[in-house]
């Protein structure tokens, strides 16, 4: 641990790590294991329990939250930097495969986030999934996700990260296709899995290239090597870094691989909240944070491309939220857009900015999804054209949803404002001025579509069926529990200000092995903050003008249509169609060839094998069994029969023949005794 300590104190912004061991650090691995134990337990006994295994899942995450919170507070006050690994296998002489857990500023933030938001969402899910089908499987798969996510964020090396990465992908596939009776949901799960798989190829190739170049997969070693401008790492940094980014694009839904995330809304709403908004989709951003020194010191050539992709994602995909009718799709496009913000910041070099937005976004986006879930629960429809006027029936949901929306839109004292401002500042300081203005435009779009969502859902007249009621307390209490951090957590990182005694988010995140080279403003940039806030307020005002008044039909509500743009948005920029076309065009012939191979080659082999087996069987039956074994048995029988037939002739019943035989025998014996012996 001494090496880590030295590096930590050398670092530019790094806070000296006061804690490098001790009970909480040494036992942090329990967080990685507990949800997986819960997964197996729920599968085994979940069906027989009162809440179908939710008790186990919540219990595991409650214990985890204790660790997450304690570590978070320890990191605030003293700084925690440690790593525990166990060697699992050795490849050759120096390439080691290890499992374990890293405890530094970045992973502690994620431990806290995944466990606390996870716990809140799990509790909410008890209410949401009540009376639903397969509740035990739901909580089992959800626990599998939590465990895999913690393995991912706690990974001390790329290999363990990939294990967790695939684990969350699998859980995501399970839960998107949770209602598998409907083929559309199954297709959504397949789409998510396949798009992610395409990106995973990049991640795995990048990991292999980088790992083999420096002989280790360890993140701390890799960061140190990058910081030292290591020669072998430098040679592959651009290729490896680009491949890792490609992997991150899949999981974090960056354009054009974002197409799976809106479809992933087919899963139950708590899944959308925790996995497809708060945590799983941020894994790509987290990965960028883990390998940040690689881009900072060696692969900076990749950065403009990454920034471009992030900028397209944050603006263009955000626009799609303006035309979606499904409230969860609105939030999904919003998530993609916000992931674009994070990725842009990470790509541009704003390490703290990107991760701070990840942190605040997790709370308010989970809040928005849970609010949407409460509404869907009440009106039994995902479509905003079936909603409207719900603010009177569902006041607690309404107010928490408004808090989440304002936070997402970036209104002044709320969390979203501070993190979005941080990103804009970072983009400005790193010299991406044009992208900074795209970010401000994105803030306008964000406010615009969130106003639309709030107006169409909660204002105007109710257009659905039945009488919607407020959700039960088990669902509204989590909403309030998420609304509080959505309001307050922005103050963790106010530029130029520290919370007395415990510092600020930048410092907590700065507990790491090497400096990340990102710059922090010493005071609030009033012009930039004002521009962002102005854009957001303009978005709200304009949104309210367009959608504030109630209208009878969907067509009227969509009257705000820019003629050229609207069809483009409705068709999602044709990216989905393009992906389908590419898939059908390239995969179609391949699939047909594979089908041909299957029909003619493999089937012939199978049929041939079957024929051979059948012939062998006939041979064994006809020759070995019928003739061989049966022949012996029948032969014995026939022999006994024949001998009996022959011998019974001796039994004539004539006394004198017997007597003659007797006399003959006696004479023979006399001859034998007298003349032979």
């Amino acid at each position, binding site marked *: 641990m001494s090496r880590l300590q030295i590096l930590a104190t050398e670092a530019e912004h790094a806070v000296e790590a006061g804690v490098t061991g001790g009970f909480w650090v040494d036992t942090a691995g329990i967080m990685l294991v507990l949800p997986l134990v819960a997964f197996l337990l729920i599968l085994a006994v979940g069906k027989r329990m009162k809440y179908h295994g939710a008790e186990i899942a919540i219990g595991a995450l409650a214990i985890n939250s204790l660790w997450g919170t304690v570590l978070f507070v320890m990191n605030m006050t003293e700084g925690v930097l440690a790593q525990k690994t166990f060697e699992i296998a050795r490849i050759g002489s120096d390439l080691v495969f290890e499992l374990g857990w890293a405890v530094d500023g970045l992973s502690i933030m994620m431990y806290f986030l995944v466990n606390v938001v996870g716990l809140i969402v799990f509790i909410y899910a008890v209410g949401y999934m009540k009376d639903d089908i397969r509740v035990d499987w739901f909580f089992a798969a959800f626990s599998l996700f939590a465990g895999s996510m913690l393995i991912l964020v706690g990974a001390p090396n790329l290999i363990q990260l990939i294990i967790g990465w695939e684990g969350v992908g699998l859980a995501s596939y399970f839960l998107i296709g949770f209602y598998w009776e409907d083929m559309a949901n199954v297709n959504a799960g397949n789409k998510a899995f396949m798009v992610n798989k395409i990106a995973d190829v990049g991640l795995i190739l990048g990991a292999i290239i980088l790992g083999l170049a420096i002989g280790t997969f360890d993140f701390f070693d890799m960061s140190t090597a990058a910081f030292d401008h290591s020669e072998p790492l430098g040679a592959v940094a651009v290729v490896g870094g680009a491949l890792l980014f490609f992997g991150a694009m899949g999981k974090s839904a960056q354009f054009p691989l974002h197409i799976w995330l809106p479809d992933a809304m087919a899963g139950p709403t708590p899944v959308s909240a925790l996995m497809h908004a708060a945590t799983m989709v941020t894994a790509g951003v987290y990965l960028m944070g883990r390998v940040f020194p690689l881009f900072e010191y060696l692969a900076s050539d990749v950065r403009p491309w990454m920034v471009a992709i992030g900028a397209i994602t944050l603006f263009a995909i955000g626009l799609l939220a303006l035309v979606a009718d499904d409230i969860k799709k609105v939030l999904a496009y919003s998530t993609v857009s916000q992931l674009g913000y994070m990725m842009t910041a990470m790509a541009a070099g704003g390490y703290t900015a990107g991760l701070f937005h990840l942190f605040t976004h997790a709370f308010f986006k989970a809040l928005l999804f849970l609010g949407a879930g409460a509404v869907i629960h009440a009106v039994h429809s995902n479509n905003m054209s079936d909603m409207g006027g719900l603010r009177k029936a569902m006041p607690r949901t309404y107010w928490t949803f408004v808090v989440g929306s304002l936070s997402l839109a970036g209104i002044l004292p709320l969390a979203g404002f501070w993190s979005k401002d941080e990103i804009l500042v970072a983009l400005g300081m790193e010299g991406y001025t044009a992208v900074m203005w795209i970010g401000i435009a994105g803030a306008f779009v964000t406010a615009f579509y969130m106003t639309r969502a709030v107006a169409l859902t909660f204002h105007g007249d109710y257009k659905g069926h039945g009488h919607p009621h407020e959700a039960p307390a088990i669902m509204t209490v989590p909403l309030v529990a998420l609304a509080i951090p959505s309001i307050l957590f922005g103050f963790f990182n106010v530029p130029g200000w520290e919370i007395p005694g415990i510092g600020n988010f930048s410092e907590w995140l700065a507990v790491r092995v090497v400096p990340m080279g990102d710059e922090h403003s010493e005071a609030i940039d009033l012009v930039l903050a004002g521009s962002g806030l102005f854009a957001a307020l303009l978005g709200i005002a304009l949104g309210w003008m367009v959608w504030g008044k109630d209208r009878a039909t969907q067509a009227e509500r969509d009257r705000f249509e820019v003629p050229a743009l609207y069809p483009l948005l409705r068709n999602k920029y044709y990216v989905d169609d393009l992906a389908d076309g590419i898939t059908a065009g390239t995969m179609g012939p391949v699939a047909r060839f594979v089908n041909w191979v299957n029909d003619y080659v493999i089937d012939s082999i199978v049929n041939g094998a079957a024929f051979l087996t059948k012939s062998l069987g006939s041979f064994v039956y006809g020759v070995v069994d019928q003739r061989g074994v049966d022949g012996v048995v029948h032969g014995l029988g026939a022999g006994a029969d024949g001998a009996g037939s022959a011998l019974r*002739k001796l*039994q*004539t*019943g*004539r*006394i*004198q023949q017997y*007597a*003659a035989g007797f*006399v003959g025998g006696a004479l023979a014996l006399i001859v034998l005794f007298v003349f032979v012996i």
Partner: protein
Amino acid sequence: MLLNQFLILAAAMFSLGIYGLLVRRNIVLILLSVELMLAAVNINLIAFEAVLRTSEAIGQVFAVFVITVAAAEVGIGLAIVLMIFRNRKSANVDELDLMRW
């Protein structure tokens, strides 16, 4: 020594018995032939006893046994012959081949 004459007599009687046993068709005569053979054996036993004079008189004892057995045998044999004759009106052994396969 008188033994040889007795042995010759016994052998002649035994051979006559065998001849009768194998040749006669009447079942009563066959039984009589068997008696003749038994008597020949008895002559042998007595003749050897007369020469050897064993202390326990084994030859005479055996002869008495043989006479007893012969009497019992003829008793049962004649009873069976009687029953057969009653049922079949015949004492010809050629017709008595019931006890066969």
